[in-house]
């Protein structure tokens, strides 16, 4: 009798002790990340049959159970991985957003300074100081483009570096997880769930999720298998596979995420890697950084080419035709690995047709085709690819030399380095072509009332003029006989005020000429006060010269600012919304798995009282035994 009471008491004591220990464990781990509160589950011992009924035999502790819901924990993981992606994206794009509109480093003030310089030369073309100041403004504009590009490059290098370190972190977690899988499998072999190890593993999975989205599959032996991307296994049982940051297949400057399998690195399709830091970095780079740098490059190339085209139509202080004012950056061409000896040389044809995309040029054995990188959309090309008839598409001019083999491909980045390779080619103020190359004279001996207007040029092919061109009016035929033109020009019929065009020269004669009246077109020698070309150059500031004739230089740059600004706002709002989603799911998860210190305090009281009561029971059992013993005495 006393035996079983003692046994019951001891069992109660043990149960109360286990309860106290568990409560204590909960209290000490209340703020441990990833901790799920633990509770003992107790059940009655097998009762003993007696004639008077079944006598209970006390209590035993079944197991220590952690308050874990896979569904709730998963919800938090899903929300968190998306939130980490948006946070990483926002951190990167914010840098971009701040640069573009900054008054000190943004493009607009430098662009305005430059055109002020052009206007100053138009106001006083013979003055060397105003020419010098134009060159100064041009140098400042170049420096600004370079500074902006350097910032873009810094951000790009930063993305590469963060990518590499993120991959390293993921690999470290994968190793740890594999190790834990092993320990848990061993520990579970003893029959009870190793709660703290399980908590550790879940916490590692949560931290891994902040780096990249993983899918978890629980195996029968209690281990987790983790998959990333489009189904590549990262951890299987106690084996961890690795990721690596490797140069991209088409562009060695760019680091992509690769999967290491059987000793080789296989570059993964980057858009399959979503979620977490890594997903954010990859999305930022492909959606925003590439197109922003290309857009800036396009502004530089467009400005250089259109300015040069007009500058070449002018004449400088030394009487020479204007040369290139800026240097136009050539597109970057990267041949694919494993190409045969074929080379592709790409130049800018018409800058107003350029887009902000990169291109893949591929040979299938018969034909060359052009695709937009990223979307894979095909782009039609005209021409044959030879020097005489280059391929022409989207403002590019492509010439292929040497024999290609099937599978040859090239990555073409038309505008990526547009800002970096933008430069001024003139250092001598006298070489600024402010004047027009020709001047017109109405002969003083004329008797009619007709006057010739100032001429303009649309092509420099036949300039400078080798000799004067004289137009003599023949009233019998109402035509001008043209002499001295190289190449020769047939007689031009006259109508008051209409434009006469020949050899790239446009001129207007208005009024009534008399028979034999002469008008002379000659080289603009010593015309140092002529600002006609400078006026046209200044007018380029407001003309829509880019993007197929829809945007001016400032307009194209403003579009860039607005696009990046919009995307930043979108990401910022998304990140905020996702944060509150994470907070909500975490709250729900914590309401099940979190420790409430007040509750644990009450539990302590409860188990303490149970312990005291159990102790009392043992005391009673002891007294009963003593009573039994003392029966024998006396």
């Amino acid at each position, binding site marked *: 009798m006393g035996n079983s009471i003692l046994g019951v008491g001891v069992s109660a004591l043990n149960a109360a002790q286990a309860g106290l220990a568990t409560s204590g464990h909960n209290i000490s781990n209340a703020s441990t990340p990833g901790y799920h509160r633990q509770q003992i589950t107790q059940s009655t011992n097998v009762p003993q049959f007696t004639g008077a009924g079944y006598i209970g035999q006390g209590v035993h502790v079944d197991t220590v159970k952690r308050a874990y819901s896979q569904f709730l924990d998963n919800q938090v993981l899903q929300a968190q991985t998306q939130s980490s992606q948006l946070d990483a994206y926002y951190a990167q794009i914010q840098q971009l*957003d701040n640069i573009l509109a900054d008054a000190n480093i943004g493009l607009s003030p430098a662009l305005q300074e430059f055109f002020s310089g052009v206007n100053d030369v*138009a106001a006083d073309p013979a003055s060397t100081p105003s020419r010098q100041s134009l060159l100064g403004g041009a140098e400042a504009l170049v420096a600004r483009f370079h500074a902006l590009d350097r910032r873009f490059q810094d951000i790009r290098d930063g993305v590469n570096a963060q990518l590499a370190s993120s991959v390293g972190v993921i690999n470290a977690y994968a190793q740890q997880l594999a190790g834990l899988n092993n320990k848990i499998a061993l520990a579970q072999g003893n029959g009870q769930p190793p709660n703290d190890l399980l908590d550790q593993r879940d916490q590692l999975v949560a931290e891994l999720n902040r780096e990249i989205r993983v899918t978890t599959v629980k195996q029968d032996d209690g281990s987790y298998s983790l998959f990333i991307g489009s189904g590549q296994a990262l951890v299987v049982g106690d084996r961890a596979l690795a990721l690596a940051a490797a140069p991209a297949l088409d562009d060695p400057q760019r680091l992509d995420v690769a999967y290491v399998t059987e000793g080789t690195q296989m570059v993964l399709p980057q858009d399959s890697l979503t979620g977490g830091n890594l997903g954010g970095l990859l999305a930022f780079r492909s959606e925003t950084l590439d197109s922003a740098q290309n857009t800036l490059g396009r502004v530089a190339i467009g400005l250089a080419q259109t300015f040069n085209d007009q500058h070449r139509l002018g004449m400088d202080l030394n009487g020479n035709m204007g040369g290139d004012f800026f240097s136009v950056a050539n597109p970057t061409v990267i041949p694919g690995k494993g190409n045969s000896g074929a080379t592709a040389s790409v130049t800018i044809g018409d800058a107003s047709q350029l887009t902000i995309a990169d291109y893949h040029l591929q040979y299938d054995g018969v034909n060359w085709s052009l695709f937009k990188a990223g979307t894979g959309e095909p782009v039609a090309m005209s021409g044959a690819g030879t020097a005489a008839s280059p391929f022409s598409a989207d403002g590019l001019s492509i010439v292929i030399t040497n024999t290609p083999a099937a599978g040859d491909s090239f990555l073409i980045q038309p505008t990526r380095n547009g800002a970096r390779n933008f430069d001024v080619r003139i250092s001598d103020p006298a070489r600024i072509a402010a004047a027009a190359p020709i001047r017109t004279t109405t002969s003083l001996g004329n008797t009619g009332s007709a006057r010739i207007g100032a001429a303009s040029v649309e092509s420099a092919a036949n300039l400078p003029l080798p000799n004067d061109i004289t137009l003599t009016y023949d009233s019998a035929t109402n035509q001008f006989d043209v002499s001295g033109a190289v190449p020769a020009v047939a007689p031009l019929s006259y109508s008051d005020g209409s434009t006469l065009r020949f050899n790239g020269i446009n001129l207007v004669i208005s009024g009534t000429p008399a028979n034999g009246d002469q008008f002379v077109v000659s080289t603009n020698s010593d015309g140092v006060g002529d600002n006609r070309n400078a006026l046209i150059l200044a007018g380029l500031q407001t003309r829509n010269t880019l993007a197929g004739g829809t945007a001016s230089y400032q307009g194209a740059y403003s579009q860039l600012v607005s696009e990046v600004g919009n995307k930043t706002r979108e990401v910022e709002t998304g990140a905020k919304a996702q944060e509150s989603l994470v907070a909500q799911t975490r709250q729900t998860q914590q309401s099940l798995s979190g420790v409430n210190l007040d509750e644990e305090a009450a539990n302590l009281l409860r188990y303490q009282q149970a312990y005291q009561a159990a102790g009392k029971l043992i005391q009673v059992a002891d007294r009963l035994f003593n009573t039994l013993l003392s029966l024998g005495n006396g």
Partner: protein
Amino acid sequence: MRISTNTFYDLGIGGIQQQSTALLKTQQQVSTGRRMVTPADDPVAAARALDVSQSLAIGQQFDANLDSVTGSLGMEEAILTSVTTLIQDVRTTAVSAGNAALNNSDRATLATELRGRYQELLGLANSTDGNGQYLFAGYRSTTVPFVETAPGTVEYRGDQGQRLMQIGPSRQVAVGDSGAEAFMRIKSADGTSQSLFTTLNNLIVALETPAGGSTQLTGSLNAAMANLDSALDNVLTLRASVGARMREAEAMKGTNEALALQYQQTLSQLQDVDYNKAISDLSRQEMGLEAAQKSYLQVAGLTLFDYL
């Protein structure tokens, strides 16, 4: 619903951080005076502000150009006024030379006076602006436009160009006239052009030649006066044109000023912070932050362990 201790802390801290962030943003707006701290705050307005700034700067350029135009045209006007006076004086002298009472030496005296005026005319035609560039040389502003190659023969070495300046988005105005138009292309009786210098020289030679028959002298004087009238017409027409251009420049100045004001207002609307709203936001958010902090302290202080 069960609330874990962690949730208490997370929510409390989260609330305080939210209030701080909002407060910091408003404080930045107030201290920089800008509504948009970064372009992301209002991307469309940020882009538009850049465009409007460019328009404003271009407008200022037009203003500077207008000042230059007014200056140049004013100088040309002054010279042409002197030329007008000169021609009128010469004409008066020519008329008085027709007086039959004068003898050869009287006419020779007049001729000497006219020689002086001839040189004066040459000087006026070769006027420079403040920077040493010739006003009447067309585009060849560093070349002397009128050169006396032989006594009595003046060649025009300039060209017939007129420099234009941009004074409005689509308006250019000529800031000068070539010497050819002002002094060389003067219609004479037979329809061809004769320069003013030639006319003057012919007059001087006629006066210096001892009068053989008075008909020859009268003929020369008449021819000279006809040409002088033509020259006077020419100069007056030119002055009218200069005057019209100066008026247009004035009008453009007014238009540009009005436009600049518009641009500045637009820019201000886009960029500047509304101080009233911002400051009231600031005090509201301060209060919010204080409330969050105080309530957090109160709630965090409650624990059952205090009572055990």
